[in-house]
């Protein structure tokens, strides 16, 4: 048993100590996605018919591959940060909250890697 008061234990510790990093990352990825998202929307409009050859050819161009990889990575990172906050806000039961947070991270990472893998596979001509 400690002789320190509960207040004494808590003083000076702050809350979680790393909120700024999360907040700033969300803003920077938001700025990036505003540009990448508009680029992608225009690209989709330009992909007449979405037929296999057209889309492969477009996606295989180096600049398009590069931007799309950055888009996928940034998108899922931004989404992961946002979903994390939503879970933290609404999930009140500790066990379920941790499971939901970890699961959300796993799904985001899997989807990001899958998307990037797909772009690379097309770009390298497989």
């Amino acid at each position, binding site marked *: 048993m400690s002789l320190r008061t509960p207040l004494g234990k808590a003083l000076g510790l702050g809350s979680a100590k790393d909120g700024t990093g999360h907040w700033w990352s969300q803003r920077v990825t*938001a700025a990036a996605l*505003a540009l990448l998202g508009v680029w992608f*929307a225009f690209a989709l409009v330009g992909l007449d018919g979405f037929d296999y050859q057209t*889309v492969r050819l477009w996606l295989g161009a180096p600049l398009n591959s590069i931007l799309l990889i950055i888009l996928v990575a940034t998108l899922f990172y931004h989404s992961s940060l946002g*979903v994390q906050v939503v879970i933290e806000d609404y999930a009140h039961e500790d066990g379920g909250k941790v499971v939901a947070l970890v699961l959300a991270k796993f799904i985001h990472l899997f989807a990001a890697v899958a998307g990037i893998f*797909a772009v690379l596979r097309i770009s390298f001509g497989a």
Partner: protein
Amino acid sequence: MASDNRPLSPHLQVYRPQITSVLSILHRITGVVMSFGALLLAYWLLALASGPVAYAGALEVLGSGPVMLILFAFSYCFFYHLCNGLRHLAWDAGWGFELPQVYASGWTVVIASFVLTLLFWVGLLAGGSV
């Protein structure tokens, strides 16, 4: 600990919805919706990387009526989240905090999100994309 059954104080439901609060919760809702939409993007890319047969199958799924409606909803969520996100970034930079400005930017976001969604689909349909 019997902390689970404590009475809760009145929360959001006691307040009249206002454009400020409605746009705020919409930002979160559209964000969550799009986190599911992003999975479709990964699915589309994977199908494209898996060859013509897999891609044709994916187009069949994505191009079916109900899924098209979902895609339309995703596109609206994207343009809303984009416009309102820019509004948030402006606030983060310290701009537009006066109440009349908040209302004006809010209604601008509402109108712009509908117009951009409409233009996007007109562009898709005109290009024969859909």
